[in-house]
């Protein structure tokens, strides 16, 4: 055995400690891998079963997520159910690699890349820092998993809509190009806010929509262009909430701030009319016959 190997052994022995701490490390290692996947997968399946997965991802992805989460649950349970193997640490170094299970110290190194314990790095400060970082990472992950487990699912709020700039993107995919059309015989009854917003944005003559009936559910955001108007807004999600883009239609409703808070869900019933406020960005806005508070829909986004 070389001197270098001896130093590594000594460092490893220090890192491993007694058999008791080895078992603790092994158990921690299982939980920080398989345990985390198990918690995440159980939560994903729970959201799937209760129909709440749509708060986070496009429902089109549900079969894939449910399938892979089920596989992950089975494999995680297999890892946790696997009989624990204890090794005698007084063996020769050549068999160190036969440790069947990694140690919490390994996690520390995988998180921060420190080499101290396994290589006998003499820098104690770095060892301490890497240890602290490893423990902090483990604690953060544990708290995160617990939060995922117990906190109720929540859709994105109006604050995100304001950060992301309502109608900042056009959202004219092939699908909407085919369904959104400005024509005398167009069927607008199935239009959501996504289609209305796209139609208003892409049309060179939005005035032709005047007197067209409008009814939609959305949440209230302030209009940048008119104090007497608010924007009836929904998020459109292509894949998951991270790509959610707010789209909306301007509703002329003087004094709306006294009746509704930003973020409140409302049903607007009315028709398109010439925008009374000349400062508004669009020549057309919705003239509402009624604006009624409504509960947040179970599926708060459009897809």
């Amino acid at each position, binding site marked *: 055995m070389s001197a270098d190997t001896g130093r590594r052994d000594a460092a490893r022995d220090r890192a491993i400690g007694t058999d008791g701490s080895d078992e603790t490390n092994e158990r921690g*290692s*299982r939980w*920080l*891998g*398989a345990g*985390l*996947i*198990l*918690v*995440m997968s*159980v*939560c994903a399946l729970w959201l799937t079963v209760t129909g709440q997965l749509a708060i*986070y*991802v496009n429902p089109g*992805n549900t079969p894939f*997520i449910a399938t*892979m989460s089920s596989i992950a649950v089975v*494999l*995680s*349970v*297999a*890892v*946790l*159910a*696997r*009989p*624990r*193997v*204890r*090794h*005698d640490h007084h*063996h020769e170094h050549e*068999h160190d*690699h036969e440790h069947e299970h990694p140690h919490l110290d*390994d*996690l520390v190194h*995988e998180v921060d*890349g420190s*080499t101290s314990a396994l*290589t006998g790095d003499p820098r104690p400060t770095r060892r301490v820092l890497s240890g602290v970082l490893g423990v902090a*990472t483990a604690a*953060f992950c544990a708290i995160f998993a617990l*939060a*995922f*487990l117990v*906190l*109720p699912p929540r*859709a994105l709020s109006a*604050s995100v809509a304001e950060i*992301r700039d309502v109608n*900042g993107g*056009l*959202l*004219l*995919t092939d699908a909407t190009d085919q369904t959104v059309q400005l024509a005398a015989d167009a069927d607008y009854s199935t239009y959501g806010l996504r289609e209305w917003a796209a139609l208003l944005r892409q049309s060179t003559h939005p005035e032709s929509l005047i007197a067209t009936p409008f009814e939609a559910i959305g949440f209230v955001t302030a209009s940048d262009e008119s104090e007497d108007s608010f924007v009836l807004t929904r998020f459109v999600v292509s*894949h*998951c*909430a*991270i*790509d959610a883009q707010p789209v909306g239609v301007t509703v002329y409703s003087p004094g709306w701030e006294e009746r509704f808070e930003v973020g409140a869900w409302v049903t607007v019933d009315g028709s398109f009319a010439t925008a009374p406020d000349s400062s508004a960005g669009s020549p057309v806005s919705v003239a509402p016959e009624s604006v009624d508070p409504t509960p947040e829909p179970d599926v708060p986004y459009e897809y």
Partner: protein
Amino acid sequence: MPPSDSARATVRNPSGSWRTPAIGAGIVLLVLVAIRALSPEQLDLPQAFNDFFTLTLSVLIESLPFIVLGVLLSILVQVWLPAGVIERYLPANPVLRRACISLLGMLLPVCECGNVPLARGLIMRGFTVPESITFLIAAPILNPIVIVTTHAAFGWDSGILVWRILGGFVLANLIGWIYSRHPRPTSLLTPAFEEACRREEHTHGTRLGRSVEQFQTEARAVMPALIIGCSLAGAVQVLVPRSALVALGTNPVLSVAALMLLALVISICSNVDAFFILSFGSTFLPGAIVAFLVLGPVVDVKLLALMRTTFTTRTLTQITLIAVLFTGALGLVVNLVS
């Protein structure tokens, strides 16, 4: 050399005693379901925290199935595929070999998250570090799902699809070639992963047992990094106004920089990033969109956290720098010619 008596593992639970831990794992599963079922339906938390947590979970839930798929493919190439099955079809010439490896994503279509465990599996199987890096960078772009979705979003408009495929291929092989000149490529790996590779070389047991063990190893490495990466991505979404980036859209140079920055922070899956960026198509120039579509699958905050399980900080800094410079130049060229 046969192990000495003292070197033999002392098995506390011999092979037949799966019952107790299995019952324990089953109880754990039931407890998790019960906690989830009994958790409150309403909880008054600050709106900013709710948004951060929802955004973080959305990236995590989106990534998790790809991570599991990547781990399964990693187990497949490490444990179940006999030696030489992949290797026999690869050319001996290193450049051609890396070029072929950069197309492996056509056979193993996983997005960038799942490619991390798969790339780790390839190294453990015996691929060189530069070859694995080439695969890691190319596969999220050069795979059938990404090509189909990019075509569905842009068709052949402005050559965005062609530029994306070519850009991904050249960038992956450029970085692979650079690291193939490295005198000691294994120094690009974290010591812990190096150690894991050494341990893997001497692993014994049934294939099923090794598969379960490999699942544990990869889950342990990837899950903490995934949670941290997703949390970073979620936090950035809440803190950075996107309108500030969109305002730069029509400038030929700044538009490229803006969408590259967006690619770095948004951490969106390469399978669907084309649909996302399509909505900015009228605001940004084609070069900026190409830069977004090439850079995003190679480096972003979530992916860097995942890659950190395998590569040193120095290596990741170099890869990021090369990728940013390359995609920036690519974006400017596309803006000039389109």
